[in-house]
């Protein structure tokens, strides 16, 4: 059992942290306030080839293994305080993973190079107004088969990157009468496709730079070549996609947690009360120790999941545990970080309140904590 990263992974991690600190320069406070997507920083992430990491070189990718991808995303979230931007980058990678795993050769040749270069922004549309945790069971968006392809009708909500996406991976029912496991299909739809409408971004509590919105399909006609994989394969693609997502999103959460932890350690050493640094008081130290515990244990389960996936094996249980443990740990740590900083923690200037607002979403998207527990219990045979 080896618990250390390779020299290459360490140097890549250090390079990404340097990049994030030096090159991601947008006014985060302003972008957060105005709900603006930092497109210049997105382009810089693309130039740094972060979106290209896990894809083959023939598509413009870096050919990195999955553990390396996770390490880099953790580093990005550690060095870059904009969790919305990091989320947008991860969404792009996840779309690429689906195309890479299930797309045709033509789809890979057409979409992966532009995805790796960040030239086009990708989104995946699963959630609907009445279908959240029960995404497949309650799905209503229909893709009716016609002579020259499919006609989509329905609405998707909260779609990350949705309002600014050039290409959207859409899940829809092709056989509403069938069991959901073989009644759902997956389509690649471009933004200028007639019948496809991107609504304005939704205002949110956190992750304000990430653009989330409603996507509407009204008699949206697509050719058969828009289908990813086979008709009826959508639920399986969704399942696979979620396993990758639950291994990638926690990498970002862990990077943020690491930064918040370091901020708290620094503050607790420097700030004094009653004649000594506040870190000397158990009531303060215990909160920071809990953060450290979550960070160390979270890293173990996340790297375990990523290592398993790097070996081409399944890590459904590990990914769900990582998602649950790290997102909940991040939320509690951010709340504690504000408390440790007292009045300063409550100010915008110290930026912890934004981390706290952002962290709440982590326990909701990619399957709520409640859903993760439900999946884990099923995987345990309960």
């Amino acid at each position, binding site marked *: 059992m080896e618990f250390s990263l390779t020299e290459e992974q360490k140097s890549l991690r250090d390079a990404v942290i340097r990049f994030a600190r030096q090159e991601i320069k947008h006014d985060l406070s302003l972008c957060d306030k105005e709900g603006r997507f930092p497109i210049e920083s997105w382009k810089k992430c693309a130039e740094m080839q972060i979106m290209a990491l896990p894809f083959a070189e023939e598509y413009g990718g870096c050919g990195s293994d999955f553990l390396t991808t996770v390490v880099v995303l953790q580093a990005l979230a550690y060095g870059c305080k904009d969790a919305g931007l990091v989320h947008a980058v991860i969404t792009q990678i996840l779309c690429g993973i689906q195309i890479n*795993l299930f797309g045709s050769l033509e789809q890979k040749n057409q979409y992966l190079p532009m995805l790796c270069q960040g030239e086009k922004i990708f989104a995946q549309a699963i959630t609907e107004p009445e279908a959240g945790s029960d995404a*497949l069971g309650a799905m209503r968006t229909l893709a009716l088969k016609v002579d020259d392809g499919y006609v989509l009708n329905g609405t998707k909500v909260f779609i990350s990157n949705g309002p600014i996406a050039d290409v959207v991976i859409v899940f829809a029912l092709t056989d509403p009468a069938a069991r959901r*496991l*073989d009644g759902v299909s997956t389509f690649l739809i471009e933004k200028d496709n007639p019948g496809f409408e991107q609504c304005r971004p939704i205002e949110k509590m956190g992750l304000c730079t990430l653009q989330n919105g409603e996507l509407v399909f009204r008699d949206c006609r697509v050719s058969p070549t828009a289908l990813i994989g086979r008709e009826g394969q959508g639920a399986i693609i969704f*399942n696979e996609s979620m396993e990758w997502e639950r291994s990638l999103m926690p990498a970002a959460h862990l990077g943020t947690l690491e930064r918040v932890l370091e901020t708290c350690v620094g503050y607790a050493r420097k700030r004094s009360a009653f004649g000594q640094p506040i870190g000397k008081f158990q009531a303060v130290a215990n909160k920071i120790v809990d953060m450290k515990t979550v960070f160390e244990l979270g890293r173990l389960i996340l790297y375990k999941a990523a290592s398993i996936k790097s070996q081409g*094996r*399944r890590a*459904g249980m590990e990914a769900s545990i990582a998602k649950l443990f790290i997102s909940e740990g991040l939320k509690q740590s951010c709340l504690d970080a504000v408390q440790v900083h007292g009045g300063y923690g409550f100010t915008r200037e110290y930026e912890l309140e934004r981390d706290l607002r952002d962290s709440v979403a982590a326990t909701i998207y990619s399957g709520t904590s409640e859903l993760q527990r439900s999946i884990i219990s099923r995987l345990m*045979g309960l």
Partner: protein
Amino acid sequence: MEIIESIRGFISTEICSGSVQKIDDADLLIENGIIDSVGIMLLLGFIEEKFAITIDGDELIPENFSTIATISTLVGKKIG
């Protein structure tokens, strides 16, 4: 024979937790709700580990998991 019985045993005990009396080779697993999306995750984990195979993306289609017989055929092909 060993493959098909292993798969049947796993589905009966681990996925259905013994709630289904008997599953025949040709019983429709998805259509009858014997296997759902989490069930597929469990089953894939089992067959990949048990038979030391990897099921690729283009093989992850509902038809390959529709009955115990089709799953067994897929596994048999992968083993070679």
